C-alpha cells in the first residue's frame, strides 16, 4: 500500500492525539486514578498505535504499545499513577513527538525507543503480583468472547493437534472502519493475508457471507499459525480501512489447558500478548462510542487543506479588487443602474469575505494547549510551584497569526516563570501564596485580539531596569533622566537587555523581549508592558484579527502611490513649512504639545527631495504609530481610504525594510504598502 498519500493525515492526527496525551497526562498528574482521563489517554495512545502500525512506523507503534500496557494497569487500579509513572509517560509523549517529527522530516526511525520501552515494561512489572492476576481475567474474558465462535468436534481436533505441534491458534476479530465501502473486498484481502500466514479453520460469519458483504463492521477468524500474534495483527492492520484487529489466543478452555501442557512456550507468548489484546477490544468499544457522541453535538467537521483556503482567499481578494474597479467605473460614468448592481455585489462580496476570513480563523487554544506541559516542566526544573490559568482559549485568530504567535508567547511565559515568580520560600516570606500564578488570557477587543501574560511574581523594578540599561550602554544618563516611568519599562524591549542576574538555559540571554517585540510588530501587533514591584508583571499583546485584507490610506509621494495601513495611522494633519523645527538636524513638528519626529517619506523611499515648499504652502503629514512612539510622515498628497488585499512581493524581493508588501488597486496598478514600524 502506498502510504505516502496518507502521510499528511497521519501527521495531522498524530499531532492532535499527542496534544491530547500531553493535556491528559497533565490532568492525570492532578487527579491520578480518574478513569475518564485514563480512558482518554488510552484512546489516543491506541489510535496512534493503530495509525503508525498501518503506516509502518514500528518504533511509534512499539512505544505506544508499551504505554498501553502500563495504562491498562493504571486503569485496572493495579498500578498507581505515581510521579515516576507520570514522568515516564511524559517522556514517552516527548519521544513520540520526536518520532512524529522525524516522520514529518522524512527520516523515520532515527530515534531509539528501546530504553523507554524497557522502562515502561519494568514499570508494568513493578508490581509483579498484580500483573499475574491481571492475566487471569483476560483469559476468562477471552473465554466469554470465544463463545460466539463455537467449534464443532472436527475443528476442535484441528485446534488441538495444531497446539500439539507447537503452533498457535488465535481467534482474530477484525473490525472495519465505520463507513467502509466494499467490505467484502477488505475481508477478502484479510483472508488472503491470513491464508499466507497459516490455516484458517473457521470464520464467523461464513466465508460465503463475507464474500457477499453479509456482515456488520467486524468478523472473526480462527487461525492456526506459527507467527506471533503481533505479526499477524500488524499484517492485517496494514490493509487499508481495517481499523482494529483483536487477536486473542483461542479461548476454548480445553484447548487453553492443553496449550499450557502442550507447549509452555506458546502459552507464554499468549500471556504476554493477552493484555494488549484486551486493550484493543476495549478501545474498540470506546472508539465506536465516540462517533455517536460526536453526532449528538450535531456538528460535522471537515478537514481542508490550508492551501485551498489560501487560494480561496486570493480569489476573494481578486473579487474585491474587481468590485472596487467596477465601483470606480460606475462613479466616473455616473451609471445609476450599474451603481445599484454594484451595491448589491458589494454586500455579497463583503459577506463572502467575512465568511472566508472566518474559515481561516483558528482558536488560540491550538497554541495555548502546549503551554501547561511546558509550564509544568519548567517550574519543576526551577523548583517553583506555579499554577497556570488559561482563559479565552476559544478566541479566534487568523491562521497566519496563530502560526507565528507561539514563540513570542513561549518567551513571555518563560520570562514570567524564570524571572517573575519567586521561589516558594521567598513568596511565603513576602506574605504571598507559595504557589505562584501565571495567567494567559485571550479576548476580543474591538477589531483586535488581546493576549495577556500576567504573573504575580516580584515584578520589574524600574531602578534595576535603569541601572541595567546604563550598564549595557543602551541609553545615556541624560536620556534616562528625561524618561517618564512608563517609558522606562519599554527599555526591556531593547536588543541586548536582560535583568536576570544569571543567565539560565531558560532565559536571560537578552534576546527574548527584543525578539518578542520584533515578532509581534511583524504581525502588525503592539506590545505593552507594565509591572508593579512586588506584585507582578503584565504583558499585553494587541493583534489585528486578520492580516490579509486591511483598510489603508493611499498617499502620493512624487508620482508614486503608496498605502499606509489604517491601523497604524493616528491622524493626518496639514502643516506649513513654518511649522517644521529642527532638533539636532532632526526635523520635528509639534502636535498637541508633543514633539514628533518628521520623516520625509520620499527620502526614505529613495526618491529625490520634493520641490521646495513655499512659505505658507500646505503640506500633508500622516501621523503614524511606529512601535511605541509616533512619527510624522511628510507626503505630497492624500488619495483616499480604501480596502486593500495584502500580497507578498515574492521570493526575489525579500527583506526590503520599508515595504511590508504590495496590493493591487482597482485599475490594476501595483501599490506598495509602507511598513510603518520599520521607519520609526
Amino acid at each position: 500500500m502506498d502510504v505516502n498519500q496518507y502521510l499528511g493525515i497521519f501527521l495531522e492526527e498524530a499531532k492532535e492525539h499527542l496534544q491530547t496525551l500531553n493535556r491528559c497526562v497533565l490532568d492525570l498528574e492532578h487527579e491520578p486514578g480518574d478513569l475518564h482521563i485514563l480512558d482518554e489517554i488510552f484512546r489516543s495512545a491506541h489510535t496512534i498505535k493503530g495509525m503508525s502500525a498501518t503506516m509502518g512506523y514500528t518504533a511509534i507503534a512499539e512505544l505506544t504499545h508499551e504505554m498501553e500496557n502500563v495504562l491498562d494497569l493504571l486503569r485496572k487500579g493495579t498500578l498507581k499513577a505515581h510521579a515516576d509513572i507520570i514522568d515516564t509517560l511524559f517522556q514517552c509523549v516527548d519521544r513520540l513527538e520526536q518520532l512524529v517529527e522525524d516522520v514529518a522530516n522524512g527520516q523515520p526511525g532515527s530515534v531509539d525507543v528501546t530504553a523507554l520501552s524497557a522502562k515502561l515494561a519494568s514499570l508494568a512489572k513493578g508490581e509483579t503480583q498484580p500483573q499475574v492476576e491481571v492475566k487471569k481475567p483476560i483469559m476468562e474474558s477471552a473465554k466469554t468472547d470465544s463463545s460466539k465462535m463455537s467449534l464443532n468436534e472436527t475443528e476442535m481436533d484441528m485446534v488441538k493437534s495444531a497446539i500439539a505441534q507447537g503452533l498457535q491458534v488465535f481467534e482474530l476479530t477484525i473490525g472495519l472502519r465505520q463507513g467502509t465501502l466494499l467490505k467484502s473486498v477488505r475481508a477478502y484481502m484479510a483472508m488472503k493475508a491470513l491464508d499466507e500466514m497459516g490455516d484458517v479453520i473457521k470464520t464467523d460469519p461464513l466465508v460465503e457471507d463475507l464474500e457477499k458483504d453479509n456482515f456488520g463492521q467486524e468478523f472473526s477468524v480462527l487461525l492456526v499459525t506459527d507467527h506471533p500474534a503481533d505479526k499477524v495483527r500488524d499484517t492485517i492492520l496494514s490493509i487499508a480501512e481495517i481499523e482494529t484487529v483483536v487477536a486473542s489466543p483461542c479461548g476454548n478452555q480445553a484447548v487453553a489447558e492443553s496449550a499450557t501442557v502442550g507447549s509452555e512456550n506458546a502459552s507464554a507468548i499468549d500471556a504476554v500478548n493477552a493484555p494488549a489484546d484486551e486493550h484493543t477490544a476495549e478501545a474498540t468499544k470506546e472508539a465506536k462510542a465516540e462517533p455517536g457522541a460526536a453526532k449528538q453535538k450535531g456538528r460535522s467537521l471537515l478537514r481542508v487543506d490550508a492551501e485551498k483556503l489560501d487560494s480561496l482567499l486570493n480569489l476573494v481578494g481578486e473579487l474585491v479588487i474587481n468590485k472596487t474597479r467596477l465601483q470606480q467605473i460606475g462613479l466616473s460614468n455616473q451609471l445609476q443602474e450599474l451603481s445599484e448592481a454594484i451595491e448589491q455585489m458589494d454586500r455579497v462580496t463583503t459577506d463572502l469575505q467575512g465568511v472566508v476570513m472566518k474559515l481561516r480563523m483558528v482558536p488560540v487554544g491550538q497554541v495555548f494547549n502546549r503551554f501547561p506541559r511546558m509550564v509544568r516542566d519548567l517550574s519543576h526544573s526551577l523548583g517553583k510551584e506555579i499554577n497556570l490559568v488559561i482563559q479565552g482559549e476559544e478566541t479566534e485568530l487568523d491562521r497566519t497569526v496563530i502560526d507565528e504567535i507561539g514563540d513570542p508567547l513561549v518567551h513571555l511565559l518563560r520570562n514570567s516563570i524564570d524571572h517573575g515568580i519567586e521561589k516558594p520560600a521567598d513568596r511565603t516570606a513576602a506574605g504571598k501564596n507559595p504557589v505562584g500564578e501565571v495567567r494567559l488570557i485571550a479576548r476580543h477587543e474591538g477589531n483586535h485580539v488581546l493576549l495577556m501574560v500576567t504573573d504575580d511574581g516580584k515584578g520589574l523594578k524600574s531602578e534595576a531596569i535603569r541601572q541595567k540599561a546604563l550598564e549595557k550602554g543602551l541609553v545615556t544618563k541624560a536620556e534616562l533622566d528625561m524618561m517618564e516611568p512608563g517609558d522606562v519599562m519599554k527599555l526591556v524591549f531593547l536588543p541586548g537587555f536582560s535583568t536576570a542576574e544569571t543567565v539560565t538555559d531558560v532565559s536571560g540571554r537578552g534576546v527574548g523581549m527584543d525578539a518578542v517585540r520584533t515578532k509581534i510588530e511583524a504581525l502588525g501587533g503592539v506590545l505593552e508592558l507594565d509591572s508593579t514591584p512586588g506584585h507582578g508583571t503584565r504583558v499585553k499583546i494587541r493583534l489585528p484579527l486578520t492580516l490579509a485584507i486591511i483598510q489603508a490610506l493611499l498617499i502620493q509621494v512624487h508620482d508614486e502611490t503608496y498605502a499606509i495601513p489604517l491601523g497604524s495611522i493616528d491622524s493626518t494633519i496639514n502643516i506649513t513649512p513654518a511649522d517644521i523645527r529642527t532638533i539636532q538636524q532632526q526635523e520635528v513638528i509639534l502636535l498637541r504639545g508633543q514633539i514628533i519626529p518628521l520623516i520625509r517619506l520620499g527620502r526614505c523611499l529613495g526618491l529625490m527631495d520634493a520641490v521646495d515648499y513655499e512659505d505658507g504652502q500646505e503640506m500633508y503629514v500622516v501621523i503614524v504609530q511606529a512601535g511605541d512612539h509616533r512619527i510624522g510622515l511628510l507626503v505630497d498628497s492624500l488619495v483616499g481610504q480604501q480596502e486593500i488585499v495584502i500580497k507578498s512581493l515574492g521570493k526575489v524581493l525579500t527583506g526590503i525594510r520599508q515595504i511590508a508588501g504590495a496590493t493591487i488597486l482597482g485599475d490594476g496598478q501595483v501599490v506598495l504598502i509602507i511598513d510603518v514600524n520599520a521607519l520609526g
Partner: protein
Amino acid sequence: MAENEAISDELKLIIFKLGREEYGMDILKVQEIKRMMSITRVPSTPSYIKGVINLRGSILPVIDLRTRLGLLEADLTEAARIIVLLVNEVIVGFIVDEVVEVTTINPENVEAANVLSSGLSTEYISGIAKAENRLYIMLNPDTIVNIAQA
C-alpha cells in the same frame, strides 16, 4: 544546463534583441510575453530590478536585462516587451527591446561561451548559437535571477 540541452535533438529558442545584438533563451522557461505595462518601482533594490508588475492578480518582479547584463541604458520603444519566465519556481519578467522570433537550433551549432574574450559578463551566458549568418547569445536565466536573489 547547457549539457542537458545538448542531449536533446533540437533547441527551441526565443530570440530577442537588446540593442543590435540578438539573444536567445530556452523557450520552455517562457510563460508568456507581455507588452510593456506600468511598473511600480520598489525602493532599496538593485538598479536592474525595475520594479513589480501585476500579472492577473499576482505580483512579480521585473528585471531590466540591459542593466542586468551591463549594457548601456536606452529608451524603450513600442517594440519593447516583458518576457515572463518561470525560473527556479519563481516567476519573473525580463524587459527586452524587442522579441524577434522563436527558432530551432541544432545543438551542434552552439559553441561554449568561453570563446568570447573578456568584457562580457559570461556567467549569464550559456553559449553562442550560430544559425545561417546570425549569432545568438544564449542566456542562462537561472544565474540571472539567482544572483538577483542573493
